[in-house]
């Protein structure tokens, strides 16, 4: 078990807004991150994730609103007094210092006695599995190793909160999966409140206790990965997390009635795997509606086949699980689609 331990604290963000000159980048953010939680800011590039994370660390323009770490209001504090550990996307290891010197830096700034520094640096390097590399320069390490040094450098100061800005984006695919597990393991071992920034939904889903989805400087929804997927609050969230059929306007069923007379402000959403593709005429369960269409396109993805089916003037995505030997529909086939009404969501835009 590690010696590096810290008391988990919460992070509270109240009505935070922030502008670069005339452009407002964060607009009234409210959030509470629980002690010890692995929390993720997820959103497309330019949505304000980094800006929000950096505001918590004390970088960037002075924001409006309040940021509390535990019970302390840190909004006015300069970065070097906040004791929140941040791992930068580029790692930001200092090239003129050895790995050991890099990791020792924060402790030296805290005027810790030399003997303790050595011990704690060794401890942190052991934790990330790089003790043997202590005397190297950052340039002599691989990307993954540099990432670990950056992590060690941050956790060695026993920060109250750990901030990670797209820490995996500079790694190749295999390493990314390994590293994401390691980070999660480390976080759980240290019981450290962690905020993770990513634009990759898979990364967010696999690591997070809860996720805040950001778009255009506004929090669109907060929830666990499954909540966000199953109960998206709006069109943006539905589309950003996974694949969705988003229908504006009426959709005609097999028996000629018109479904979803949705108005301008609402969109109908259902997931591709919630539809059951069958040969005509098709069977409908008690809660099902039945649609009729023609296969316009087919992609074999291994575990499933993804069809594009034209229904009236709409094109629907339908995912059909593939089991060994199962017959697939061909392009041009007339098909029926069963859809359970329980799985249909009406979203506001």
């Amino acid at each position, binding site marked *: 078990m590690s010696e590096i331990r810290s008391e988990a604290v919460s992070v509270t963000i109240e009505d935070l807004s922030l502008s670069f000159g005339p452009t407002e980048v964060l607009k009234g953010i409210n959030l509470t991150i629980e002690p010890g939680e692995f929390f993720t800011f997820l959103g497309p590039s330019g949505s304000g994730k980094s800006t929000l994370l950096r505001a918590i*660390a*004390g*970088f960037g323009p002075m924001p409006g609103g309040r940021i509390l770490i535990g019970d302390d209001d840190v909004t006015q504090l*300069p*970065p*070097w*007094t*906040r*004791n*929140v*550990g*941040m791992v*930068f*996307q*580029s790692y*930001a290891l*200092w*090239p*003129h210092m050895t790995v050991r010197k890099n990791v020792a*830096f*924060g402790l030296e*700034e*805290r005027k810790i006695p030399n003997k303790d520094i050595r011990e704690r640096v060794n401890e942190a390097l052991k934790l990330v599995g790089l003790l043997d590399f202590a005397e190297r320069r950052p*340039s002599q390490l691989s990307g993954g190793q540099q990432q670990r040094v950056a992590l060690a*450098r*941050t956790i060695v*100061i026993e920060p109250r909160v750990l901030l990670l800005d797209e820490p995996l984006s500079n790694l190749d695919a295999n390493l990314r999966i390994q590293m994401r597990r390691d980070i999660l393991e480390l976080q759980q071992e240290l019981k450290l409140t962690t905020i993770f920034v990513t634009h990759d939904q898979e990364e967010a889903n696999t690591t997070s206790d809860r996720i805040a989805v950001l778009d255009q400087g506004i929090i669109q929804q907060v929830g666990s990965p499954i909540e966000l997927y199953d109960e998206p609050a709006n069109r943006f969230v539905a589309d950003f997390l996974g694949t969705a059929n988003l229908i504006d306007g009426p959709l005609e069923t097999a028996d000629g009635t018109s479904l979803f007379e949705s108005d301008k402000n609402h969109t109908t959403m259902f997931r591709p795997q919630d539809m059951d593709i069958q040969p005509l005429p098709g069977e409908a369960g008690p809660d099902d509606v039945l649609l009729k269409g023609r296969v316009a396109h087919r992609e074999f993805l291994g575990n499933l086949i993804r069809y594009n089916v034209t229904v009236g003037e709409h094109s629907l995505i339908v995912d059909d699980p593939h089991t060994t030997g199962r017959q697939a529909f061909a392009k041009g086939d007339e098909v029926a689609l069963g859809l359970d009404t329980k799985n249909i969501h009406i979203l506001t835009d």
Partner: protein
Amino acid sequence: MNSFSRSNWGVSTLAIFISLFLLVFLVVPVGKVIFVAFQDPQTGALTLINFIDFFNTSLFQESFLNSIYVSSMSVLLASIIAIPLSYFTTRFNFGGAVLIQTLGIVPLIMPPFVGAVAMLLLFGENGSVNLLLDEWFGFTIPFMEGLNGVILVESIHYFPFILINLSAALLNIDRAMEESAQNLGASGTRLFRRIVFPLAMPGYVAGASLVFLKVFDDLGTPLLLNINNMLAPQAYLRITSIGISDPMGYVISVILVTFSLFSLWVSFLALKGKDYSTVQKGGGGLMKRDLRTWEKIGCYAVIILILLMVLSPHVGLAMLSFGTVWSYSVLPDAFTLAHYENMFRMAGQYISNTLLYAGLAATIDVILGTAIAYVVWRTGIRGRKWLDFIAMGAVAVPGVVIGIGYLRTFVEYNVPIVDKPLASWWVIIVIALAIRRLPYALRACTAALQQVSVMLEEAAENLGATKSRTVRRVVVPLMTGGILAGFVTSFATASVELSATIMLVNVESDAPLAYGIYEFMQSAAGRGPGAALGIVAVLIVGLATYISHRVIERTEMQRTGTGAVIAEQTPVAIGTTTGAAPL
């Protein structure tokens, strides 16, 4: 493999030709100088006696110490000028940044010796500034007294080397480097001392060692300020007054070369393995902040003070060229165009010689530069790196040494048709200029070639173009910008070179502009026309520098497809700084 070996034949011939040229005009003369320094003048035996004599002569001891003192103090003063300027531009948001960037170019478009006389008139014992100081406050400052004058002139001229290198180093520090330190608890001066300063250090050292080298080798400035007790002037005076056989000139040459190599080695060490350019996409440069009003006033005060100093040689020279009589007074008595008339009447030859010499030298340089770059980077010829190394080695050879070496080596070779020794034929001046400027042209051509990726060549060949057509239709068009920039830089710096040419000019009618300025400035009556000629030199260099900047900008735009050429800052000044006039 047939076509390969055939094209290899041509390339080998080319490489042999270049090697011969470098051997005859660089290696042999420099080797000869070094050899003679270790040779007993009477018996011809190898000996250290010349060095012992040198260090036992008090004048030489003094010159040696003076040269080191002047170079070190120039580095110090240049640093005092350059460090705040580069810090201001990279740290603060304010309009002065543009002013500072101009500051970085202006001194380089005037050879230091040209401004020296003007500086005497402004800052000398009876110059404008001291006259005013005496009148208002009753004291004077010995700005130009003895070695002070050399230090002042040299540091005003060469501080841009530090400014450019240090600014580039600071701009290359990723913002996250600073932020991560703050995140871990560092701030203020500790942050600066532990992170910013060490990261910028290699850039500073590279700039500073270049300044040291240039000042240590400079001949023109001390000569014009009539300071003879330094190494370069001593070498020149011994050879011109006592004769080509006097060993002291050779000993001094060896010392000059040694110190040049030493400063290059220091700069190499500073940069070696320290590619601290940590900048990531988007996050370049230090954290910038806005200035409070009083800080802004302070910054502008410093900048304007430095700007006044930096511009003073230019202003002084202009006043001298337009003034009637200017002595013991703050300003010239009256203004006139007579000096320009005189100058054009008497000095037309100097100007046309200069255009001819510098034009030929620059042509030789880009041809050699392109050829060497091609041989080194696109062929597998054995020993090709040596070609590059030797050509670049010319950086470490001071003009005085080239001059002495040529005089000694080529005095015995009679050129058939003109029936003169090669050492006193005007063509030798062109060759000296070409050799001295070759490293700069070679850097430009290498950079240009490296921008043409091998893949572009391969694509052309894949589509059916032969090797020679590929070179003609793809490589050369893509290189023209860089080659042109190399040409203009070589031309500009060659046109104001003094230290090698002053030794090689045999008859007045062969002399170039720099020599003419030197001649004019020897007499009080010649100062006016001399200054007018100096203004011509400034115009030539200024225009050429402007053109080369435009050319680089254009090619950069073509290459990146955008108009955004962000601060054409060169990371390492050696050989890449356009318009840098290393005399």
